[in-house]
């Protein structure tokens, strides 16, 4: 123990005497380990940390695997029929479904506010193992269609609206314009997969919402049951449904199976998160290569000291122990600082993410993350200390105790190999981030099909019983858009259920005439007010747009886009054709990019779209669509208008004082929201690629600087014998340039394999995109050139005469 204490003391002294080296190592470790800590925090929260519920290993969800003709393996969508079978015919499970989270207007205690409502079936909280702090769960009666309307508040909302008043239980609150009875309050800190502020009973049925796969199921194994039993029961219960799938996919094999709920919730993000972890691992390897090079040089400078210690009786292990202790100290200090860096990086990542992007309530730096940081700190000290330690084993006492320690060519080759290695990893990261950037640019520069400039959008929730009435709905739209047109500076105003760059409602469509009669398919559906196309400046390609004449009692009409005409009419003019029995297509407009929902191939793409007059939407549709969608009030202005959002709010409030807006957006905001995943991938991977580039540059710079320092004597002698500074610079810089070139070549080979896995996340470009590769090579070559050249500038200051005198 006293020996170890002595080693630690000596190590601290050594590191204090070399502050440049120590600082470089600590900063390099802090950045690289910090990046790993931040990403691992997300991995931990998403994939490793148990769900915050009782016995999370007994909680699951249901997946559908289809093999044979085609393959799919994803979370099973649940409709009303499936839900009833699951509830009634699978006794091994306690099951529940949810209808997702949507924004609604809450009126309570004379306050009106916009809140997130999670719609859940009766036993949802039982599956989670959550008991309300106050009151009770939903009853079976409250969960049947048209049953009593009940609500459970989150602790935070109960606190803010009712000031934590226990007598609030049993009181009515207005949600969606309808009275709900407050039956329960969740405990403080309780979290659900929906992460909502208020919970209402879903009241699922086979109609309406339940007519499509709009529910998500969660399950809990009953005591004594096994997952195998549950899966067998599920497959028996849904056998007829599986038959329907097989009918549409001859030869297919259909299986339903349970997966842990954690996997089900995080599956969509798993590949991206693991890819980021891999990238962070690359950063760590690059940092280790850098530090191994620095440590090797430092060790070589200390070869006389090593030789002296060996001559005085030290064993090889005793020498190496000293260096390991120094490396470990540096790694632990670096790891300590890395916790701070990781914390800041994690905050930055979380700020980058849109609200509710991650399906977890929080991403903490918990014990597991700290342990991970400690382990990789120790591991990096082993990795970057290994080379110098191996070199000490081969110290030649006789020559090492002579005057100077010069890096032999063996060590030079080693250092060049380290540079080549880290440059090759940098190539992979740069290429990957370059491809993602190109893909994102492709998505962001898709032809908009409308004029996105000068638009302001307001959203408001119409998930309100008052607007199940078409007349009230029409009145709201007419009055609010008319008021908005009166705002000074506003050129036009309209309302649409969705606008470009957003997800649209999708529904079935049946062609009703011509040779295509009877053909069915899917289409996006958007209800719009008459000025919609003019306000967005969407080109009209054929026929006409809607007017005030297109009302509830006139011919049902529709306008379709080019994609619809291509899909169903082979690109011919669709004007005059009939769909859905009696709806007449009166116009064709240009395609606009939507957040793909129908047949998702890319996050933004054109899909067949049917526009219908808002005035012709029936009551049944109104009560349904506003559960999932908040319509957009769109105004166009010629230029900036001061106080525009306030004026728009006033126009809405004038039409309905109890209708708060949920937000104001520009078109870019909507695009950003739709492309959030892609933007985050670019930001994170881009940051890591930049860090890798910086580390590689530092590594190259350090290598060349060391060579210049070690060979100053040789350079001085050469210059005294007739060489020029320029020749010396080229000679010295060549060794690093050669290593960098080799690294680039290796990196391209690595990328050929690694980038293949990116095919599914790239849009508009291939994985072997030549311009991207060329840019990567150019960037690396430039950085390597600068990093190789700058330290050689010192050569110009070498005085040959002084060098010879020093000899």
């Amino acid at each position, binding site marked *: 123990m*006293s020996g170890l204490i*002595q080693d630690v003391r000596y190590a601290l002294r050594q590191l204090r005497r070399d502050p440049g080296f120590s600082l470089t190592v600590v900063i390099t470790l802090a950045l690289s380990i910090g990046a790993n800590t931040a990403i691992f925090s997300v991995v931990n929260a998403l994939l490793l940390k148990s769900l915050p519920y009782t016995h999370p290993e007994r909680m699951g969800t249901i997946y559908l695997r289809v093999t044979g003709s085609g393959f799919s393996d994803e979370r099973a969508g649940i409709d009303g029929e499936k839900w009833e079978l699951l509830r009634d015919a699978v006794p091994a499970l306690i099951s529940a479904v949810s209808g997702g989270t949507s924004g609604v207007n809450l009126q309570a205690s004379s306050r009106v506010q916009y809140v997130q409502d999670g719609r859940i079936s009766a036993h949802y909280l039982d599956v989670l193992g959550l008991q309300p702090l106050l009151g009770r769960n939903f009853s079976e009666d409250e969960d049947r269609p048209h049953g009593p309307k009940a609500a459970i508040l989150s602790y935070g909302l109960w606190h803010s609206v009712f000031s934590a008043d226990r007598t609030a239980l049993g009181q009515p609150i207005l949600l969606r314009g309808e009275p709900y009875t407050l039956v329960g309050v969740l405990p403080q800190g309780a979290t659900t997969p929906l992460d909502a502020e208020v919970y209402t009973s879903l009241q699922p049925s086979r109609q309406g919402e339940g007519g499509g796969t709009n529910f998500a199921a969660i399950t809990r194994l009953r005591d004594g049951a096994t997952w195998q039993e549950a899966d067998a029961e599920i497959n028996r219960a849904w056998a007829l449904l599986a038959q329907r799938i097989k009918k549409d996919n001859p030869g297919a094999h259909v299986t339903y199976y349970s997966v842990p709920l954690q996997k089900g919730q995080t599956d969509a993000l798993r590949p991206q998160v693991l890819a980021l972890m891999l990238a962070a691992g690359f950063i760590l390897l690059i940092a280790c290569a850098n530090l191994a090079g620095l440590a090797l040089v430092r060790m070589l400078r200390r070869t006389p*000291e090593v030789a*002296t*210690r060996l001559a*005085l*009786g030290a*064993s090889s292990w005793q020498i190496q122990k000293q260096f390991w202790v120094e490396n470990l100290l540096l790694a632990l200090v670096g790891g300590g600082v890395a916790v701070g860096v990781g914390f800041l990086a994690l905050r930055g990542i979380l700020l980058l993410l849109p609200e509710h992007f991650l399906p977890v309530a929080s991403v903490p730096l918990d014990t597991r993350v700290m342990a991970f940081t400690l382990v990789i700190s120790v591991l990096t000290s082993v990795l970057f200390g290994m080379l110098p330690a191996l070199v000490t084993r081969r110290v030649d006492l*006789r020559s090492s*105790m002579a005057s100077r320690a010069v890096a032999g060519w063996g060590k030079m080759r080693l250092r060049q190999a380290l540079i080549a290695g880290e440059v090759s990893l940098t190539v992979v990261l740069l290429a990957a981030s370059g491809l993602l950037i190109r893909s994102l640019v492709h998505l962001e520069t898709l032809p908009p099909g409308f004029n996105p400039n000068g638009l302001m959008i307001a959203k408001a929730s119409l998930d309100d019983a008052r607007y199940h009435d078409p007349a009230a709905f029409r009145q709201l739209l007419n009055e609010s858009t008319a008021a908005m047109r009166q705002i000074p500076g506003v050129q036009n105003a309209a309302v649409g259920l969705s606008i470009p760059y957003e997800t649209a409602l999708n529904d079935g469509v049946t062609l009703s005439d011509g040779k295509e009669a009877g053909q069915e398919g899917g289409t996006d559906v958007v209800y719009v007010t008459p000025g919609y196309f003019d306000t967005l400046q969407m080109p009209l390609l054929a026929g006409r747009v809607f007017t005030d004449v297109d009302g509830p009692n006139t011919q049902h009409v529709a306008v379709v886009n080019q994609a619809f005409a291509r899909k169903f009419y082979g690109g011919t003019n669709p004007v005059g054709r009939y769909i859905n029995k009696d709806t007449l297509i009166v116009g064709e407009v240009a395609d606009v990019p939507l957040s793909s929902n129908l047949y998702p191939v890319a996050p933004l793409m054109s899909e067949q779209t049917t526009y219908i007059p808002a005035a012709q939407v029936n009551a049944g549709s109104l009560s349904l669509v506003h559960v999932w969608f908040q319509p957009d009030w769109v105004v166009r202005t010629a230029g900036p208008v001061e106080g525009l959002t306030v004026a728009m709010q006033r126009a809405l409030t004038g039409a309905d004082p109890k209708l708060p807006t949920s937000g104001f957006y520009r078109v870019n905001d909507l695009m950003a929201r739709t492309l959030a995943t892609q933007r985050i991938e670019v930001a994170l991977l881009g940051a890591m690629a930049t860090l890798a580039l910086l580390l590689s540059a530092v590594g190259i710079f350090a290598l060349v600087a060391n060579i210049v320092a070690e060979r100053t004597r040789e350079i001085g002698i050469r210059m005294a014998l007739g060489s020029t500074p320029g020749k010396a610079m080229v000679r010295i810089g060549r060794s690093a340039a050669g290593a960098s070139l080799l690294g680039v070549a290796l990196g391209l080979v690595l990328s050929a394999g690694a980038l293949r896995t990116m095919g599914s996340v790239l849009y508009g470009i291939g994985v072997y995109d030549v311009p991207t590769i060329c840019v990567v090579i150019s960037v690396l070559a430039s950085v390597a050139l600068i990093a190789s050249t700058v330290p050689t500038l010192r050569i110009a200051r070498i005085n040959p005469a002084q060098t010879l005198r020093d000899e």
Partner: protein
Amino acid sequence: MIQLKNLERSYKSPAGQFWVLRRINLEIREGEFITVMGPSGAGKSSLLNVLALLDDGWEGEYWFREQPVHAMKRKQRAELAKRNTGMVFQSYHLLDDLTVRENIDLPLSYKDIPAKQRQSLVADTLDRFRIVAKKDLFPSQLSGGQQQLVGVARAVIHKPVLLLADEPTGNLHSSQAKQIMDLFRELNQQGTTIVQVTHSEANAACGSRTIQLRDGWVVSDTANPDLQPYEAVKP
């Protein structure tokens, strides 16, 4: 104490085999104070490195207190050297990051000696060499003579039976050199066998025996007047 029989050392070079020690036959008795002399490149330091067991690349026989060093593995030789030899270098080879006390303690730290005992030995040595006041200074704060004094103290703290000195006064002024040689004489009188390499006749005079080397051969040995050197290197 030491017997060398036909000991040779060579290096491979692009021009062929390069010999630094040729057929060295030598006997060193306990308590001798031997000076090894010769021109540059004669093999003096090479011989010293072999005697100190710092060099493994030699051939021949090397007996140390009747133990066959030539038959030992590297670890065994290192152990033998650790216990029995001390080395003093021309360039002192003190560790710049360690204080005087720590430099002197260094050889003890590589042995299994309890900390308290080590402290006691170091204190005694500091006292013996009259450098107690300098124990917390670093080598850069000492004169050349003081540094070499510390080097000698470090070499003898573990009471080696054999002290090897390679140009111990090469970097010192004459007065400092005399101080060091007086110290060597004192150590020799106390029983330590000393082998020094030097160019200085004055230093050589402190010893009891002088061996001359040339081109790797022993050409004369005051303890062996009948020595017949190799023809090519006869003086």
